C-alpha cells in the first residue's frame, strides 16, 4: 500500500533533526530517512512512537493514497 509521510514537516515544526528523532524512537537515522521518503513501511509500534514523539496522531503523519476515511484531527 502506497503512502506518504509528513514526518519531515512535523519534524521541522518541532525543530528536530533526523538523528534526534531517530534517537527518540530508537531507530537508525537511515531508517528515518527511508521512512520520510516513503520507501519503508513501518510497524504499527514505530508509527505510534514517531507520532507520539512529534505530538501528533498516526493519521497526521501517515497518509495513505487510497484512504478516504481518514478522520479529521
Amino acid at each position, binding site marked *: 500500500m502506497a503512502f506518504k509521510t509528513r514526518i519531515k514537516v512535523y519534524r521541522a515544526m518541532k525543530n528536530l533533526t533526523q*538523528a534526534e528523532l*531517530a*534517537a527518540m524512537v*530508537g*531507530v*537508525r*537515522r*537511515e*531508517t528515518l530517512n*527511508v521512512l520520510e*521518503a516513503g*520507501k*519503508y*513501511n*513501518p*510497524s504499527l*509500534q*514505530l508509527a505510534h512512537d514517531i507520532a507520539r514523539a512529534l505530538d501528533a496522531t498516526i493519521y497526521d503523519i501517515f497518509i495513505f493514497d487510497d484512504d478516504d476515511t481518514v478522520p479529521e484531527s
Partner: protein
Amino acid sequence: MNPNRLRILIILIPLALIILSILLVPAGELPFQPILVFLIVAAAVLLASLFSITRRQLMKGYVVMGIGMIGVAILVAILFYFQGDSGGYAEIYEAGVSGLITGGIVLSLIGGIKLRKGPDSDIQDERTKKIGSWGITYSWYITYLFVAFALFASILGLPVPSMDVFLWLIIIIMPVSALIFQSYFFHRGDIDP
C-alpha cells in the same frame, strides 16, 4: 541464551584462548604450534573486533582503522625484511605474521565500514532486523537451489565439482549471497517493492 551471558562467553572464549596460547607456545609442548599462533592472533582480532562493534562512538572507528593499517604496514615490513631470522620458529613466525596481517586488514575494513556508516550503525532497529533476516532467507533459497541443481546434475551424469570444491562453493555462496541481498534491500529501503 541471555544476551549478556552470550556476550561474556564470546569475550571469554578468545581471552582463554589467548592466555592458554601464551602459556603453551613458549614451552614448545604442543605439536601444532603454527595453528596455535594463528589462533592467538585470530582471538586477538576477534576481541578487537568485538570492542569495535560494541562501541558506538565514531572515534572508535578511526582508532580501529588506524591500528589495523599500522599493523598491516609494520607486519608486511617484518615479513619481507626479517623472514628466516627466526630460526626453528620460522613456521610459527610466518603463521603469526600472516595472521596479524589478515587481522590488520580485517580491522581496517571494520573501521572503514564503521566510519562510512556513521555512529548509529550499531543500532538494530526493526528495519535492519527485517532486512537482515530476509537477506538470509533468500540466501538459503539460493543455496538450496544450488544444491538441488548439483544433485540433479550428478544424477544426470553431467560434470559436477568434487566434494571439496562443492563445499567451498557453499561456504562462499551462503554468506556472499546473504550480503548481496541485504545490501540490495538496504539500498532499496525495504524488502517490499
